[in-house]
């Protein structure tokens, strides 16, 4: 090599500086891409959440009508109070309040029934059945207006729309304005959405049944999947010999985590429902299926948490004469606990939002109440969302978005719990 080939210090610096600009540009470009990706992701998130919230928030406001109803003894048979037409009684009382006279065909009262919920009639029936002495008196009932009427109050049905294209005609809209002006119709926070279960009438439908169903199902899943998953992972990681069999098992567990959830639904249908005769559409069956689904994720999370425990801790425990089991359960597993719990909570949150396998096991049925125990029929939040989304009535669509909000709130709570658990149990060494 000649001397000319060896660069001088000055020329070397020049070369480096020339490249320096390029290097900086490269870094800037990469940062820019990163920021752009985050901005795009945030936009989509805002769009998604914004749409759900703008569609759903109105569900949390409801319009209730209060009407004094004269329980006419001529129209209610004391011997058989269930036979009377309470809806008609309510409708006519509303007409009276509006200063209108019903025609002979009952056409006007029929139109009133289209703007008030039949819940008012049910309430009357219930009261009279419990206390027949009410007959002959005037009592005031309060109940929701029909969902279409509520949509009008919320501005989602507009007067400007031609009469033929909307569900309520001009006269009904006039009545509603009048009722609102007179103070008979009031608005407030929709408590019944959180205290009612599913109903065929959108204004009476709520998410309580679905929340309780979800909670029960998740309980079954947690009780089964967390201990089995954690112990299986502990065995595989700390006790099992490392040979071809355990390798095969590990590969299979990793693959199971990627199996589409609907396949678990089919498996649950075949094994738990058909073979073991677990009642269909029950929280027990749903919990069993979701436990199967959550197991691989919990096992993988636990194994990686166990792997992260420094080997020096194992040596320390073994060195003072702890047995393998003592080493694992006194030291290794407690140290892995933050990771284990985070993994478990996140996979349970995932199970909470699962829909497809539950459709397979018949959880799609209409359940108008809180589930009666773990083997009773139940519905869960995501399935409730699915059912309402498929309903034809417009009032249900609003509720779909509201149910999604409730589901998201539960998800956020669970994810926060995962973060808190992690902080709480994290130990430094």
């Amino acid at each position, binding site marked *: 090599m000649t001397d000319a080939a060896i660069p001088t210090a000055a020329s070397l610096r020049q070369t480096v500086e020339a490249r320096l600009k390029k290097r900086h540009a490269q870094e800037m470009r990469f940062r820019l891409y990163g920021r752009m990706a985050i901005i795009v992701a945030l936009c989509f998130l805002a769009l998604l959440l914004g749409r759900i919230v703008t569609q759903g928030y109105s569900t949390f406001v409801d319009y209730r009508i209060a009407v004094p109803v004269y329980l006419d003894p001529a129209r209610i048979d004391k011997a058989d109070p269930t036979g009377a037409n309470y809806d008609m009684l309510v409708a006519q009382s509303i007409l009276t309040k509006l200063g209108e006279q019903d025609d002979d065909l009952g056409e006007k009262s029929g139109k009133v029934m289209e703007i008030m919920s039949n819940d008012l009639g049910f309430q009357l029936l219930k009261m009279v059945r419990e206390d027949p002495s009410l007959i002959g008196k005037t009592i005031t009932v309060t109940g929701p207006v029909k969902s279409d009427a509520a949509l009008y109050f919320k501005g989602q049905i507009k007067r400007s729309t031609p009469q033929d294209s909307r569900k309520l005609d001009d006269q009904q809209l006039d009545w509603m304005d009048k009722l609102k002006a007179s103070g008979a119709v009031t608005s407030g926070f929709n408590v019944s959405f959180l205290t009612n279960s599913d109903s065929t009438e959108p204004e009476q439908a709520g998410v309580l049944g679905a929340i309780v169903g979800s909670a029960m199902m998740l309980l079954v899943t947690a009780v089964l999947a967390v201990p089995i998953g954690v112990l299986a992972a502990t065995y595989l990681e700390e006790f099992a*010999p*490392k040979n071809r069999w355990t390798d095969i098992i590990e590969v299979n567990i990793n693959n199971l985590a990627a199996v589409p959830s609907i396949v678990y639904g089919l498996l649950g249908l075949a094994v738990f429902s058909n073979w073991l005769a677990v009642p269909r559409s029950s929280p027990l069956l749903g919990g069993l299926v979701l436990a199967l689904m959550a197991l691989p994720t919990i096992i993988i999370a636990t194994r990686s948490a166990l792997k992260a425990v*420094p080997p*020096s*801790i*194992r*040596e*320390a*425990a*073994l*060195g*003072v*004469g*702890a*047995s393998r089991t*003592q080493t694992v359960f*006194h*030291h290794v597993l407690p*140290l892995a606990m933050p990771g284990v719990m985070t993994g478990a909570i996140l996979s349970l949150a995932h199970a909470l939002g699962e829909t497809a396998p539950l459709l397979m096991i018949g959880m799609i049925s209409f359940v108008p109440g809180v589930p009666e125990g773990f083997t009773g029929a139940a519905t869960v939040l995501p399935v409730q969302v699915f059912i309402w989304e498929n309903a034809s009535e417009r009032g249900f669509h609003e509720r779909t978005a509201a149910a999604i909000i409730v589901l998201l709130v539960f998800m956020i709570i669970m994810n926060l719990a995962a973060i808190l658990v992690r902080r709480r149990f994290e*130990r*430094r*060494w």
Partner: protein
Amino acid sequence: MPSQRDDSIAHDTVAPVHIAVDRAHASQPAGPIKIRARDVNVFYGDKQALFDVSLDVPENSVTALIGPSGCGKSTFLRSINRMNDTIPGCKVTGRIELDGEDVNDRSIDPVVLRARVGMVFQKPNPFPKTIFENVAYGPRIHGIATGKAELEEIVERSLKRAGLWAEVADRLHQPGTGLSGGQQQRLVIARAIAVSPEVILMDEPCSALDPIATARIEELIDELRNQYCIVIVTHSMAQAARVSQKTAFFHLGKLVEAGPTGEIFTNPRDSRTQDYITGRFG
């Protein structure tokens, strides 16, 4: 033979004249044999790490195992309390006798063996628990203490013997991981002592410590010698010379030479030992 490059050798390249062998210690008569190893071979999978090692370790004395990195001294140490059992694919042949009993015998439970043969590791590894819990753990799992008072007594005695009591007496219920490196290593020694072992194995116990903490540990080792049989692996020949009565030099998985520390450092029989202790390793 390929030359063995090792940082620690360079680091320890101390002229032999500076290695002051404590004649008083080194010339003390060795006690009865506590550990007798015969033809020990250790394999990690297909790789053989130890070749026919035979060594006697006397009671109530410190035996130092020296040699370059990867020479098998830690492997030999870990065979004594069967810590190698925890390594998959590790196989030990030959006999290692503790008081005449083969430690690899089927009748010996490694749990009991490790209570009799305690171990201190290279990096201080206290449990991420309180100081008290660290020391109390061993007695508790072995059921040594019958009550809370006895357990407290054991903890106090062990910490005192490890020379840590004065420093931690008022903070027994604070995490052991909050102590300094040297204190942690003494805590670990206290933890080992708490189960009343007969032998204490130390695997480079001072390599992660500063000179002052090292001196403190060495002092402690010297005190403990009266009650325990101690085997220490060290990279520092100065340390071996300071604390041990017997020294064994390992090279490439073979025991090259073993004898009273004074002899090994002043008059080694093997040229490899000579080269190693003078820092002229080839």
